């Protein structure tokens, strides 16, 4: 309950404000506006700050929400409460349509794309006869409960802030869940997330729709607060303003959206009312000061005000420890032990004229450690990428447990029980070790976004976290469970990646240079761990440069040079192979 205490206090304080005698009604108007902006900004926090998708079109979704209720209540006489689900539905559907096109865009195309349709929609709102063109729609009925009509800003205040607090709770819940981890993994690129079965395109569309529905809710409330809707508040400038509300507050933090809205709305108000007194009524001085303040703020606190503020509070964040007694979640697919587990048959990868992998064939049997070695540029990591379907092979056949994976997605390969680590560590630095590792168990959970928001996922979530904690203990990082992954030394980050891979409960573990950056004792422990895994029936395929480590550990070694397999066999035979010696030393030693 103590974790919820600040929230309860905040809710009580917000509920008490209108009841204080002598509160100017104008304050309530400001608070109403803060709430409306906070809703949109919260969606942007999820979309932009957490998911890494920048949207310049968020105000257009407010427009969908506002115009839906405006048309339905004025032209068709529907009750405003009845139009609420419809407003949300229309914004959501618009997001599906725009999102299907937009979230496919990579890199900078995405924000620019949103800017483009944001502007297009704004002009559409202002030209459509149905929506009253530039004049918009007026005389929208107020919200009402029975005969109580919420005409003044003090009465709709409660509706707005209940919406804000509920949304914040639901959003926080969503982020702290299986789906939330998938969303948080998006910003660091899609390869790592997909290697653990996350459907990245679907996750992106999900946050896109979620943010749009929040904006639609804000639009619906706006229409009934103003009892009018016109195109201006749904244009590009409004979208930009929402975006910087999110950035000012702290784009990675749900409550940063609320804080940002408060700061920006109040600052604007103060500037608008006091600047003309200081400088005379000339021009739009407030936007000058506002713009300069924004640039100054970014230079002083580029992460926004929320982390800056919470970092100064004396309270330390307590992280709850996972309950280790929870039963392990089931494997994504029941493994069918087949010999060989992995069969690479004439795999080939060409980049233009360069043959990175040249008709390589080898196999991995159940309960075997195979090492893939070779000088730099031999095509080891490319072979890994072919097996995990990060790259599409130019020719050849790769089967996992007898299933041909040509044409499969990386998620499908993960589902078959293949887990991997990366040569360049791909952890999410601002998530804890526990959360990072739990991402590995993604396929072994089943709770979706809505269940997570409503906290119906707790049993499922407890199983995933317990499994993650067990794997962290197994690799010997139990002490670091609640550290941020980015704070660990590189060697330990590699080990965290191994724990994450183990969370899939894999049949085949692919390790890309796991011992790099480890000290001698740590390497010994890693070797013991891998032997233990093998003895438990797991197969390991590893790329490694530390020959002592490989020769001691591997059952079999495959040697690549310039993309071609030059040798295969037990360590002792490979060590004496003249071709291998030539490849490494340049001549017969």
């Amino acid at each position: 309950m103590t974790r919820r205490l600040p929230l309860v206090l905040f809710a009580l304080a917000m509920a008490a404000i209108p009841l204080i005698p002598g509160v100017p009604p104008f304050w309530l108007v400001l608070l109403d506006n803060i709430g409306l902006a906070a809703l949109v900004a919260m969606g942007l926090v999820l979309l932009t700050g957490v998911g890494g998708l920048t949207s310049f079109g968020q105000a257009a979704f407010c427009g969908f929400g506002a115009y839906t209720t405006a048309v339905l209540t004025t032209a068709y006489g529907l009750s405003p409460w009845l139009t609420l689900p419809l407003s949300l539905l229309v914004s959501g559907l618009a997001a599906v349509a725009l999102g299907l096109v937009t979230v496919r865009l990579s890199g900078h195309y995405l924000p620019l794309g949103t800017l483009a349709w944001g502007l297009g929609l704004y002009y559409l709102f202002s030209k459509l006869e149905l929506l009253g063109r530039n004049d918009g729609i007026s005389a929208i009925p107020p919200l009402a409960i029975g005969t109580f009509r919420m005409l003044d800003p003090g009465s709709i205040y409660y509706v707005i802030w209940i919406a804000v607090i509920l949304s914040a709770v639901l959003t926080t819940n969503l982020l702290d869940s299986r789906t939330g981890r998938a969303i948080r993994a998006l910003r660091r690129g899609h390869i790592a997330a997909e290697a653990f079965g996350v459907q990245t395109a679907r996750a992106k569309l999900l946050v896109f729709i979620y943010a749009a529905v929040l904006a639609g809710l804000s639009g619906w409330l706006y229409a009934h607060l103003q009892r009018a809707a016109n195109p201006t508040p749904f244009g590009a400038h409004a979208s930009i303003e929402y975006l910087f509300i999110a950035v000012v507050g702290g784009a990675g933090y749900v409550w940063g959206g609320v804080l940002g809205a408060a700061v920006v709305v109040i600052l604007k108000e103060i500037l608008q009312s006091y600047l003309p007194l200081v400088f005379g009524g000339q021009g739009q001085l407030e936007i000058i000061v506002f713009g300069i303040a924004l640039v100054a703020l970014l230079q002083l606190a580029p992460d926004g005000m929320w982390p800056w503020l919470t970092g100064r509070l004396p309270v330390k964040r307590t992280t709850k420890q996972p309950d280790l007694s929870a039963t392990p979640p089931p494997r994504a697919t029941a493994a069918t032990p087949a010999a060989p587990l992995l069969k690479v048959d004439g795999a080939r990868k060409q980049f233009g004229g360069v043959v990175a992998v040249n008709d390589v064939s080898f196999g991995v049997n159940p309960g075997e450690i195979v090492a893939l070695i070779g000088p730099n540029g031999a095509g080891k990591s490319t072979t890994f990428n072919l097996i995990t379907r990060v790259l599409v092979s130019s020719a050849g056949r790769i089967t996992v447990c007898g299933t041909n994976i040509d044409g499969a997605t990386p998620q499908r390969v993960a589902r078959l029980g293949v887990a991997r680590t990366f040569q360049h560590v791909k952890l999410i630095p601002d998530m804890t070790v526990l959360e990072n590792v739990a991402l590995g168990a993604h396929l072994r959970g089943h709770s979706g976004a809505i269940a997570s928001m409503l906290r119906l996922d707790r049993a499922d979530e407890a199983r995933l976290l317990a499994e993650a904690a067990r794997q962290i203990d197994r690799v010997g990082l139990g002490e670091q469970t609640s550290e941020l992954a980015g704070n660990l030394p590189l060697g330990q980050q590699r080990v965290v990646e191994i724990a994450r891979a183990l969370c899939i409960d894999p049949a085949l573990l692919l390790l890309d240079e796991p011992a790099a950056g480890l000290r001698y004792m740590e390497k010994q422990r890693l070797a013991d761990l891998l032997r233990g895994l093998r003895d438990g029936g797991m197969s390991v395929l590893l790329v490694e440069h530390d020959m002592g480590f490989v020769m001691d550990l591997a059952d079999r070694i495959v040697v690549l040079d310039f993309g071609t397999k030059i040798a295969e066999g037990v360590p002792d035979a490979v060590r004496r192979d003249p071709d291998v010696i030539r490849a490494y030393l340049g001549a017969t030693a």
Partner: protein
Amino acid sequence: MNTTILLFLLQDGITNGAIYALLGLALVLVFAVTRVILIPQGEFITYGALSYATLATGQVPGTARLAVAMGLVALGFDLFAARKSWRPGPLARALAVDIVLPVTVLALTAGLAGRINNVPVNIALSLLVVALIGLFLYRIAYQPIAHTSVLVLLIASVGCHLAMQGFGLVFFGAEGLRGPAVSDVAMSLGPLQVTGQSLVVYGITAALIVALWLFFEFTKYGKALRATAVNRLGARLVGIRTTLSGQIAFLLASVIGAISGILIVPITTLYYDTGFIVGLKGFVAAIVGGLVSYPLTAVAAIGVGLVEAFSSFYASNYKEVIVFTLIIPVLVLRSLAAPDVDEEKD
């Protein structure tokens, strides 16, 4: 539609398209070198155009004073940055660029305004003023956060755009202005009236594109800029001063923006906030060019101009809707064609 209208629309589209091409090129340049999406480009347009129009009425534009003020702030930033090591060389350079230059330009403007009122002088003064503003803008707003993410730079751009637009209103008022044509020649080509102004637009656009090409292909600074664009860290390691590259990029972008403004202002009335939407159309072209390709951007800009001209004839109400929605299919195509790289933002 008859041939006359067709030809007229074509001409109109190409003239506008040429200007969008200039803006698109500047946006590509700045983005490639600094990763800044230059929303204040619109203000460079209005500042250039309205400074020129104000000078033509014999008055001193407020932008000249703004340049001096920004120079002072930039000096503050330079002094703060140099607080650990005081060396006379950089200090003298800072003083010369931040103080002497803008003050000289202000003095020139104040001295010449109303006395020598001819088109080339006014153009030169407007360009000087806007160039300085562009340079200082980078120094003040972007250089301290040059290492941050594209998103933070973008939000900073929004802040700059808002502040500069506000200053625009203070300097030029809410009334629109029109400037004198660069060339008064007019001739008939069949059914078409070709004005000297539109010929100047084509000529200058072509000349600037060639000049940019020469700059990037054959000069040391041009190559340094390209190197910065490809790899910031790598460029620094081989001794290229990336802050200098950023300043040059902003200098070029502001001059190009101002030239575009000066070219438009005799054709159509400009208001203090017109630049934003004109800049956005240059943006559309830049996006079509993928923010990397200059020739493609130029071609796309002509396309945008033509689409705009024809849609304003057939569906004038939906002109903007059409222009801004058209790029979505382009974006999808570009995105699909782009190699699937696993980018790590932050």
